[in-house]
C-alpha cells in the first residue's frame, strides 16, 4: 500500500501546535539537566540516599499498581459490563481522588491509617504501620492514582465486543474462562497502559506522601527537602536524574506496548 507522502496544510498546522507543546515539556527538562555541571551532577546522584530513594519510589509505585490491578480491574470490568443502581455514584467515587487536593487526601488517609485510625489501629496491633513506613507510601500513591488505572481499564473493557464473551459462553466457557480466554487477551494492552500511567503518576506523588509517610523519603520528598533546606543547586541533580530515568522508562514501555502495524493482507474474495 502506498503511503501518502504529501503533507497537507493541516498536517503542518497540527505539527506546529504540537511542537509548541513538546517544547513546553522539553524546556524544563533540558534546563534542569544542563543546570548542574557534570561534576555536581555526578556528586549529587552518587549519594547513596538518592539511589535508595529512587528505588524506594519506583518500588512503592509498583506495589501500589499491583494492588490496584487486583482490586481495580475486576471493578473496572463490572463497570464496563453491568448496569446497576448507584453506578453513577461509584463512577464518581472512583474519580474523586483525582479531584481532591493531594494534601487533603494525605490528611484524610492519616485519619484512617494513622495509629489511632479506623484501619490503622487494628492493623498496628498486628505490626503493620503506615506513617513513617513503606506501607504508607504505597497507600498514598494508591489512593491518588488508582483512578487512572480503573478508568483506563474500564474504557478498554468496554471496547471489547460483549458478544465475544457471549459466544465464548455458548461454546462452554464459564464466566471466568470467558474472561480469561477472551476478554483479558483482548484487553491486556489497555490495562498495562493504564498500569504504566498509574505507576508513573504514583512516582510523582508528593502531597499525600508528605503527610502520611514523609519517611522513608520518596524522591519527590527528597527533592523538595533538598530544595527547601539547601537551595536550588542541591535539588537540581536529583531532579535531572529523575527526569531522565522517567523518560527512559516511559519510552521503553511504549515501545513494548504499542504493537507494530500489521501489514495489510487482503483476503481472498476481495477482503469483505
Amino acid at each position, binding site marked *: 500500500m502506498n503511503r501518502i507522502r504529501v503533507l497537507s496544510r493541516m498536517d503542518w498546522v497540527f505539527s506546529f501546535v504540537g511542537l509548541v507543546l513538546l517544547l513546553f515539556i522539553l524546556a524544563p527538562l533540558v534546563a534542569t539537566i544542563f543546570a548542574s555541571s557534570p561534576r555536581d551532577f555526578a556528586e549529587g546522584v552518587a549519594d547513596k540516599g538518592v539511589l535508595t530513594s529512587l528505588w524506594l519510589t519506583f518500588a512503592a509505585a509498583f506495589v501500589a499498581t499491583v494492588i490496584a490491578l487486583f482490586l481495580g480491574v475486576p471493578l473496572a470490568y463490572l463497570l464496563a459490563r453491568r448496569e446497576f443502581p448507584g453506578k453513577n455514584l461509584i463512577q464518581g467515587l472512583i474519580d474523586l481522588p483525582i479531584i481532591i487536593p493531594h494534601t487533603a487526601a494525605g490528611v484524610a488517609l492519616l485519619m484512617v491509617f494513622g495509629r489511632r485510625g479506623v484501619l490503622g489501629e487494628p492493623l498496628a496491633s498486628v505490626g503493620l504501620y503506615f506513617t513513617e513506613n513503606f506501607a504508607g507510601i504505597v497507600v498514598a500513591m494508591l489512593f491518588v492514582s488508582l483512578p487512572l488505572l480503573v478508568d483506563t481499564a474500564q474504557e478498554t473493557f468496554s471496547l471489547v465486543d460483549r458478544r465475544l464473551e*457471549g*459466544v465464548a*459462553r*455458548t461454546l*462452554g466457557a464459564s464466566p471466568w474462562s470467558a474472561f480469561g480466554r477472551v476478554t483479558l*487477551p483482548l484487553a491486556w494492552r489497555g490495562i498495562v497502559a493504564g498500569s504504566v500511567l498509574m505507576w508513573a503518576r504514583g512516582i510523582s506523588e508528593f502531597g499525600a506522601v508528605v503527610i502520611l509517610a514523609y519517611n522513608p523519603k520518596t524522591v519527590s520528598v527528597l527533592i523538595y527537602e533538598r530544595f527547601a533546606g539547601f537551595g536550588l543547586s542541591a535539588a537540581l541533580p536529583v531532579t535531572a536524574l529523575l527526569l531522565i530515568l522517567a523518560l527512559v522508562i516511559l519510552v521503553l514501555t511504549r515501545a513494548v506496548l504499542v504493537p507494530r502495524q500489521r501489514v495489510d*493482507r487482503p*483476503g*481472498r474474495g476481495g477482503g*469483505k
Partner: protein
Amino acid sequence: MIRLEGLQVQAGDFSLSVDDLSITPGEYVMVLGPTASGKTVLLETVAGLRRPQGGRVWFGSRDVTGEPPERRGAGLVYQDYALFPHLNVAQNIGFGLRPGRTQAAAGSEGRSRATSRRPQGTGGRVGELAGLLGIDGLLQRYPDGLSGGERQRVALARALAIEPEVLLLDEPLSALDGPTRLELQKELKRLQREFQATVMHVTHDLDEALTLGDRMAVLINGRLHQVGPPSEVIRHPADGDVALLTGVTNVFPIISAVVDRECTRIRLGGVKGGGTSGEVELIVASTTVGQLGGAALAIIRPEEIVLLSGEGVIARPIPEAGVLSENLLEGVVWEIQLQSVHASLEIDVPPVFSVHVLRPDAQRMCLAAGSRVRLWIPPEVVHVCPV
C-alpha cells in the same frame, strides 16, 4: 427437541413473546422477520445469553430456562461472525473443545453428531471440521486476514465443534455478496443434513427461508404470527402483516361477502399505491370468510394471477376447469419493471393489482405502460385471512 413455552423477554423498550414454538430434532427452522422484530433477542434467549422475564426454554426433557449458556450447548453464529480476533482459525474452531469448558448434560436427545465415529483428539476434530467446511488451508490464519465467506465458515465450524443441541444462526449470510451467499446456502443445507443438526436460522430474506427451511416462523414486532412450512405460509399467510412480509402486495380489505351453497362471492376494494380506488367482485374458493367475524382481507399472490393481453395472448397456461367468465378483470398497465427473470406489473383495474410474469412472456406480449390487459384470478388463489 427445542421448545419455547410462554416466553416473555424484555430488552430495553422492546418485548418479545413466544407462546409456543417447537423444533424437532434435525429440523431446520427459519425465523423470518423484518429488522428489529426481535430475532436476535430470540436467539440470544435460546442460547442463554438473555434471561426471559417469563416462560420456559426446553432442550429435550431438560428445562434450561435457568441454566447459564455454558451448560446449554447451543451453538451461536452471529451475522458478523464474532470470531476471536486474537486467535487463529484453528484456535477459534477448537475453542469449545478445550478443557475450561463446562460439560453440558451428557446424552441429551437431538444433539448433532459428527459423521466420523473415530475417537479423535482436539487437533483431529478441528482439522476434520475445517475439512468439512473447506477451510483446512486457513488454519493458521487470523480472522482479519480472511474474506467474509471464509469467516462465516470458521464461525460455523466453531459452533459445530461442540456438537450443539441446536445451532442458532443470526442472519449468517446477510453480510455476504450474492454468489457467496448462494454457495453458503447450499453448504448450510448440506452440513445440516450431514450433522443431522437442529437449526434455528433467522433471516429477513424470504427466498433464503424458502430454500433452507423445513418450517418457517414469522416474527414481527416481537410476536410470532405464523409457523408452518414455507410454501404453506406464503400461500396462506395468517394475516396482513405476514402477507406483506412474504412478498404479497395484493392485500385488499373485503367489503362484503355472500356465502352461497356453491361458492362465496366477495367484494373487495381499496386504494393501492397511488392508483385509483375501486371495487371488484370475485368468486373465491375459500370458505373461511364466513368464519371471520370482523374485518377480513383478501390476499392474492402476484404470480398466481393470469395475465391476458388485449389480443388474447395468455401469459401462462390456465388451470383446468377454469371458469373464464368469472373473476375476469380488465385494466391498464400502470407500471412495468423488467428484472432478470421476472417482470412485475402494476395493473390498474381499479384497484391496482400486482402481477408477476416471466420476463420473456412480458416482452412477447409487448406490454408497456398504458397497454390494456385482462386479468383472470383463479378462485382458489384468493386467500382470506384476518387483519
